[in-house]
């Protein structure tokens, strides 16, 4: 009886490991429900996207702030050049409102935020619009085919 319990325990642990591993598997792979996971890593003052090229459809955006400063993330369908506000420090989001696909609020270092969205094919720009961050280089590109 005791061996049986031990065996059950072992199987349970293994099952948990498998589930955890699948949950933590790399970007681009289909997540539950068929959404494509796009991992966005922010840090002072750079944004990396993985994968940078995906198929159109449902996307799960996983945004991780590597700090040390607070960062937000805005996803807009790309245009030739992002318009700046008059201060010259931030992008004018109101102008981009109709092309904004996602807007993830700012969060402190270490934070992981998720967002689900449907992306149609096109070129997308990801940027942090906190004062000076875009101008300091926090911009990346995502291509949806």
């Amino acid at each position, binding site marked *: 009886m005791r061996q049986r319990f031990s065996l059950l325990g072992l199987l349970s642990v293994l099952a948990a490991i498998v589930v955890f591993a699948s949950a933590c598997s790399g970007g681009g792979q289909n997540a539950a429900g068929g959404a494509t996971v796009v991992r966005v890593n922010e840090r*002072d*003052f750079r944004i990396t996207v993985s994968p940078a090229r995906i198929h159109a459809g449902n996307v799960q955006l996983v945004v991780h702030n590597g*700090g*040390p*400063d607070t960062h937000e993330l805005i996803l807009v369908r790309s245009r030739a050049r992002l318009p700046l506000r008059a201060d*010259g*420090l931030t992008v004018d989001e109101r102008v981009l409102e109709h092309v904004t696909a996602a807007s993830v609020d700012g969060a402190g270092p270490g934070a992981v935020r998720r967002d689900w969205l449907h992306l149609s094919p096109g070129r997308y720009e990801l940027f942090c619009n906190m004062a000076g961050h875009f*101008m300091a280089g926090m911009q990346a590109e995502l291509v949806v085919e």
Partner: protein
Amino acid sequence: MRRQFQPFASGGRRTIVGILVTFALFSALSVTLSIWTTKGSQHRAAVVEVAARQRTLAERYVKEILLARAGARVDPQQTASVMAASAGALLNGGTAPAVWGDDDETTLPAASGTVVRRQLEQERRLVSDLQATGSSVLAGRPVAAVRLRAHEHLKATSPIDRLRVLSALTSNVSLNAARTIAAADDQNVNHLIIVQAVLGALGLLVSLALGWVLIVITRRKTEHFRSLVISSTDLVLVLGPDGCRYAGHSVGALVGKDESALLGYGYEAFVHLDDRPALRSAAAHGGPREVVFRMRDQSGEWRRLESHLTDLRQDRLVRGVVLNSRDITERVELERQLTHQAFHDTLTGLANRALFRDRLEHALAHSERSGQRLAVMLADLDGFKQVNDSLGHDAGDQLLREVGRRFSRTVRASDTVARFGGDEFAFLLENVTNEEVIGLARRLLDQLALPIVTGGRDVALGASIGIVLHTAPGSTSEELISQADVAMYAAKDSGRGRYELYCPEMAKEVGELLEIEQELRLGLQRGEFSLHYQPELDLESERIVGAEALLRWQSPTRGLVSPARFIPIAETNGLIVALGEFVLRQACTQAAEWRKAGLVADSFVTWVNVSAKQLDRHGFQTVVQQALAEAGLPAGALGIEVTESTIIERGAATDHARAELADLHRQGVHIAIDDFGTGFSSLGQLRHFPIDMIKVDYSFVQGAEHDAKDAAITANLVNLAHALGIVAIAEGIESPGQLSSLQSLGCDLGQGYLLGRPMPPDQLEGFLSQRRSRLVDGKAVA
């Protein structure tokens, strides 16, 4: 070991202390946390302030660069250095410099927390980048050449734009660092609130638990205490200014009412009228500590309660005097009985010697003061011992009780009658005259003369009463009792059945008697007694046929003491038994020697006198048999003389004596009745009694020669003996005329000075040789 129940013991106190300590601990912890958190908040507020100030400084620095480029007199380097120093202080602790016109220096602690430290490190790098870029702008160097350390990838190429971006980044990170610190502070405060709430809840729970424990303990103890009080046999009353405030269950049970009936002044209905003031006083004054009062129980009997008082009038919960009472009725009754027993005779219920003496001493003291006379009487019952011996102790006790009752009825109510033990009674008569005392003594004797039915027989008793009248001041109770005792012995000595008033001469006589008594005892031990023998002759043949052994006492101080002097004393004190045994053994030994020496014939009889007291003692027959056996004397060579009274007058005691004598007679021992004619012999009894000889009293013998009456009596006594088939012997023959008269009357044997005086054994041996005694044939005494 089981712990003793303690109604208000340390259990409850411990719990209360536990509650207080818990409160104290939690309070101390809470306060400490608050202080620590507040202190931390104060530091963090300063940090936030400095961090927020960095934003202002960064913007100011950019403005000053622009102004400096425009030729204004500003010092952006100073702002940069303040900004750098502040960034360093924020990160590693230290003093943040004052900003002119703004605030004072601020001492900061080193930053804690990984996030904050990373942000502040980034801030310091951005400040450095800002300062380097600003310096390049002022110096006119290309800003693109400035090596940026904070990983900026600046898009702008204009120096001013680069400065503005760097300033914005610096402001941003400073602001975010301040927010992070503030958030941490908020978090700490939240934690504190949570911890405080948890501590408060825990403290409340612990206190509630301890309080509950306290309540349970208190309730249990209260229940325990209540059950103890309720089930206690102690009677508990609480008396206050408004009467009874509480009555225990036991009190209700005692009086047979519900406890509520006792409340207020209801209890007084059950308290003895005489005891109510004491209880009211105790309730009013809280004392004394002990009170004894009586309560009527449900059967209507008064119960005596001994109460211990506890004054709790000042106790707000009691407000009264608590009486813890015990029913001591039985104990008091027992004490009364014990006291009564200690001072009363258990048999008759009369006073005993101790009480009599106590009363006598009080009476003496009163007599000394008032001059009133008092008298002490002692009465000793005559013949009681014989009644006791013959009818048994139960009959004797019954007799004593009846005598006590009669005495009590006869005296006045104020007189004291006591029994001193045995058959001795004492009377204390106060305020009496001689005539009254004597009259009472007579009435007492009259009462005793009335027959008392005991043991199935009518018994009439006499008494010897000694009276002493207290006349001489200074006499003690001891002296009076002793004097009454002397007078009583004088009455006894004077013939019993009478009273005697004490006079000083009596004391001398009594002293003399006591001395003789003492000397008698010593004389017996020292061998001062001896036997003389008086021959008995056949009046017809004048041959010696026997001898009467007579006791002689040769006292070293008194010389030869007459038997008439010491025999009555020996009779009184019982020494006669030892003396009689001595006579018996000595006579048997002597007779055996004579027979062995051939001095006497086989029919020679040696006579010894035996007293009634000897016969009364069980085992007399054995004593005789032992004396005969030890001496080797045949039973037929021994004769026993008893008086008429011994076998006839003493009622029941006679039965025993007769049986003893009859047994001895069957064994061959001769029996004679001494002093015959002086008593009141019943001829009918005499006929059935196994006797061999009667001795005609010398008073008749001495008158036989000249007094016709004495001669007639003597003749009749001789004839009576012959009619009964026994021998008659005349004693006290002192003259030839008497001898010839007796011979003419046909008397068989004779004894007297004329025929031979009492003489020591060796003289009798000579006498026997001289008279050449001849053997007497069997018919003479057989």
